[in-house]
């Protein structure tokens, strides 16, 4: 139950914090107020074996039972006043609309927005730190950090010298367009440049949530399995760029770069690859050149 208002939803909340600044917290869920003033009825549904319906206002009761198998079913009660509303709406429509608004905001500001996704520990933050160092005095780089907890990553980015805000999602497993919109307001993007949104480390959930980015970049590190694209296909399907990180460790691991690229290309033939070591900086020049080119295209 929500600890703030007592409603039945779980107490999901996220925080947007700037390094060195006071916390701003947003109660992150929706309330649905609805009263039933003229109805007195109860339903019980979804039991595997037997269930019962009481309709006090209709004056009938019926019970029936099902066999041992747990199956799904529909009930027609023949209520004369029941009617159908055709909705036909994408479940993520609200997020998609907000993402389009973010996209418009980024275009108006001349900002290239990048959604950086990967599993935890693939080197997203290290790649960002190095990118900030290598583009200093050339590109205005802004960062939104997404993690369930802590300011660790925002502090690292702050130390590397880029304006940053941290979103702590609490129990949330992904960023969404609303969070990014709110974080942007605190980031005060006042110059043309690149905004890199480091998503929560997770190859599953962030794949469905458009943040309004121009490009989605998925990182895979060679200490992971080279079959990651087959295991998490949706993320590779929705990405534009795949960065293969930690290539300095290739002599010590079984990761087959060509095989991983072939797996990823099966799902998304348009994926462009960069092979880098954020630590040794090998391959980072190509990555930085790509960022600069994409920024030029924003105008």
């Amino acid at each position, binding site marked *: 139950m929500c600890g703030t208002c007592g409603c039945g939803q779980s107490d999901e909340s996220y925080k947007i914090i700037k390094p060195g600044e006071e916390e701003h917290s947003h109660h992150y869920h929706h309330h649905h107020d609805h009263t039933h003033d003229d109805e007195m009825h109860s339903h019980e549904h979804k039991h595997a074996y037997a269930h019962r319906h009481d309709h006090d206002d209709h004056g009938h009761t019926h019970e029936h039972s099902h066999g041992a198998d747990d199956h799904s079913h529909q009930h027609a009660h023949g*209520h004369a006043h029941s009617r159908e509303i055709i*909705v*036909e709406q994408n479940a*993520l429509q609200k997020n998609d609309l907000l993402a389009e608004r973010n996209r418009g905001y980024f275009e108006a500001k001349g900002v290239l927005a990048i959604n950086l996704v990967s599993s935890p520990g693939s080197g997203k933050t290290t790649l960002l730190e190095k990118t900030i160092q290598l583009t200093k005095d050339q590109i205005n780089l802004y960062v939104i950090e997404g993690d369930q907890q802590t300011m660790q990553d925002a502090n690292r980015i702050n130390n590397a010298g880029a304006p940053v805000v941290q979103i702590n999602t609490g129990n949330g497993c992904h960023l969404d367009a609303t969070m990014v919109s709110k974080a942007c307001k605190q980031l005060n993007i006042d110059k043309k440049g690149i905004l890199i949104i480091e998503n929560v480390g997770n190859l599953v959930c962030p794949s*469905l949530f458009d943040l309004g980015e121009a490009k989605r970049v998925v990182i895979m590190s060679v200490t992971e399995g080279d079959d990651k694209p087959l295991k998490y296909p949706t993320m590779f399907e929705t990405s534009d760029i795949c960065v293969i990180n930690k290539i300095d460790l290739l002599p010590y691991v079984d990761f087959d770069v060509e095989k991983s690229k072939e797996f990823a290309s099966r799902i998304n033939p348009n994926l462009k690859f960069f092979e880098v070591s954020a630590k040794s900086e090998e391959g980072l020049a190509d990555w930085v050149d790509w960022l600069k080119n994409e920024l030029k295209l924003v105008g």
Partner: protein
Amino acid sequence: MHEFSIAINIIDIVTDAAESQGAKKVNEIELEIGDLSGVVYEAMEMAMESAVSGTWLENTNITITRIKGKAKCSQCGKMFSIDNLFDQCPECGAFNPVIQSGKELKVKSLQVE
């Protein structure tokens, strides 16, 4: 657990649609979930149950129709069933078919009073 976030979005859509039509009660929500939508069918069922708990939709019957993946080969044009995004065309072996169905993640209709 992105299914729970999606369930919250679904409840918003249902509430908006029902209230805009002056409905006082929602008897049934019909959803369509595709096998290639990135959502786990069973997790979505659970997420919907827990998301409606304590709301005005608590007693609403939720019907989820599962949509199987179908694709058309981008090389030879063969139509075939697809379980994974990396499946090959059974005819010519090509990858990256054009998905025809299975990506659905939507609120289809409501039965209201």
